[in-house]
């Protein structure tokens, strides 16, 4: 129970970084931390105490393996997170070239 709460505290730290900072790179770091905390929460849901990894072997019983379904979902989610971060960073590079600064309060000229 307390492990679940600690995971959500990490999510709140990332959310604070996204809302309160002025630098674009700090906001991207906050988003990444939020993504990591949610992946961890998913894997925590399917854990069994004193379990085994979900890989068979010629002399093992199947009785106490951990749940393989959340692990399959989180594997996809990690790679998609990498794609999102790469796109955001390329956008930040373009904004820096056009406006010369990374401060979001100074970027308010909406011309093409």
């Amino acid at each position, binding site marked *: 129970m307390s492990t679940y709460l600690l995971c959500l505290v990490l999510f709140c730290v990332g959310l604070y970084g996204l809302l309160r900072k002025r630098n674009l790179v700090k906001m991207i770091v906050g988003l990444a931390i939020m993504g990591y905390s949610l992946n961890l929460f998913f894997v925590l849901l399917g854990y069994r105490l004193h379990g085994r*990894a979900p*890989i*068979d072997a*010629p002399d093992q019983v199947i009785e106490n393996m951990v749940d393989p379904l959340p692990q399959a979902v989180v*594997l996809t989610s*990690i*790679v998609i997170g*990498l794609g999102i971060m*790469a796109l955001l960073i*390329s956008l930040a*590079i373009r904004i820096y*070239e056009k406006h010369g600064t990374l401060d979001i309060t100074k970027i308010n000229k909406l011309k093409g």
Partner: protein
Amino acid sequence: MTLLVKTASRLVVVLGLIFGIHIILHGHLAPGGGFAGGVIIALSFVLLILAFGKDAALSKLSLKLASNLENVGALLFLIIGLLGFWGGAFFLNILVKGSPFRLFSAGTIPLNNIVIGLKVGVGLFVIFLTLVILEKSKKEE
């Protein structure tokens, strides 16, 4: 880059490629699979760019060829899925399933692993190459 980095990275690039291919091929017997192996292959190419400059990597794998390889990878994945219609449903596993614990077992799963590893690896290499080319052209202005 200094001489130390260049000599060491010549060995590490080859080791990285072999390691990545091993993880992709044994995806159904040991932890790993297509995604992790593909990213390892991309990392070894990125090390080649960082140590020798972008011309050394461009002579082995130009931007057009990498783009085309990635498109071919995505199309192949779709074709392997459509082959399942032979058996009656989308993505059905129709090839012969040997006995477990051997390298050539489990139907279409090793083929899927190879195609996904190709696509992910080449795609991430293209992203990094685009970043480096943009910086080079900005410096010349």
